[in-house]
């Protein structure tokens, strides 16, 4: 199994763990992740204005590069995945964006949204399969009660993200089960952590994270799992409840955590 792999800027800096454990797990599962030579930051948030082209171009470049390689494109950061999938949807379905981006970039071959964009969670579920994954687990996380924290970016808008049911997702719970632990389903798992607002208004994001954390702890979670560096930053600022990247627990269960460090 071979994919183009887009780490994104935060995984090269503050979220190195998310990246290094993802690579170690992929290798352990026989997945080859190929990072393009040249990529730029996706911008972190999807540009919502219909007339915005420039802020989408970094995403288009990496999507077009994957198309040239004949690969699907895998990401692990919730935010990068969100931006790449939505820009790709525009390139496929919005003629104005497609034409303007292609005209601006003057690519060798026109890019029309042909690259499949996958979150690593989707690769684990749909390509590896959770049953197969379970067989590869050498250190089952038995006895751990883990709450999956989805937040907003992975799931919404559901018709474009298509990762899971945006109101009642289960991919991370199924992953937790495959790793031998017990998933804790709590109502605030798909509520936003406050996102970028925490730069200027930590009180607001604090209130939002408190609600999420209380809900998780109330339902018995001993730790949370996330795919987003910003969710982790916001949640950690407000509690001692451990928050892990899903790739870290996956690496632990697959027995490749030490080597990845």
């Amino acid at each position, binding site marked *: 199994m071979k994919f183009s792999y887009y780490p*994104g*800027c*935060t995984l090269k*800096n*503050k*979220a190195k763990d998310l990246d290094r454990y993802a690579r170690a797990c992929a290798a352990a599962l026989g997945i080859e992740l190929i990072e393009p030579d040249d990529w730029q*930051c996706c*911008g*972190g*948030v999807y*540009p*919502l*204005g*219909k*007339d915005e082209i420039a*802020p989408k171009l970094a995403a288009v470049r990496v999507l077009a590069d994957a198309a040239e390689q004949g690969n699907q494109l895998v990401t692990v*950061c919730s*935010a990068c995945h969100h931006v790449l999938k939505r820009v790709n949807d525009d390139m496929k379905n919005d003629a104005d964006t497609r034409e303007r981006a292609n005209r601006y970039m003057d690519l060798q071959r026109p890019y029309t949204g042909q690259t499949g964009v996958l979150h690593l969670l989707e690769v684990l579920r749909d390509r590896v399969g959770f049953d197969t994954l379970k067989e590869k687990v050498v250190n089952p996380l038995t006895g751990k009660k883990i709450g999956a924290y989805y937040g*907003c970016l992975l799931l*919404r*808008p*559901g018709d474009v993200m298509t990762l899971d049911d*945006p*109101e009642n997702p289960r991919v991370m719970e199924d992953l937790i089960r495959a790793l031998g632990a017990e998933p804790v389903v709590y109502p605030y798992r798909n*509520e*936003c952590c*406050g*996102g*970028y*607002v*925490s*730069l*200027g*208004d930590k009180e*607001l994001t604090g209130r*939002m994270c408190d*609600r999420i954390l209380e809900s998780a702890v109330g339902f018995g979670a001993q730790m949370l799992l996330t795919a987003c*560096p*910003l969710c*982790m*930053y916001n949640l*950690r*600022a407000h509690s001692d409840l451990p928050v892990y990247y899903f790739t870290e627990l996956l690496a632990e269960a697959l027995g490749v955590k030490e080597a990845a460090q």
Partner: protein
Amino acid sequence: MSELTERIMEISGADPRKCMKCGKCTAACPVAGEMDIKPHQFASCLAKGQSDLLLSSNTLHKCLSCFACVERCPRDVRPGRLIDAVRQCVVRARGQAFLTPEEIPELLDDELPQQLLVSAFRRYRR
């Protein structure tokens, strides 16, 4: 329809006139309690041509673009997009950015992820 309302509809690609005032967007919004003008009121102000009111609303600072409202809206009005379009009408004008590079150093801490800075700049500045 005012020029501003037209501009907001053009940027957002959403149509506030389809709103049936059910309030599901505001019910779903995790920060509605902090907003002076709630998501459903954004749609209704725009539909009534009162778009000027929205330019100084604190909602432009509070909205997280989390899309809970968009997911729940039965009429595809996409309030989160409307709010962002109003925000863009404000920040695109010179000197109206919500965030300047000079403010950054004192907002930093050791754990702050790069993603937070690029995201905030994308939303608060043009």
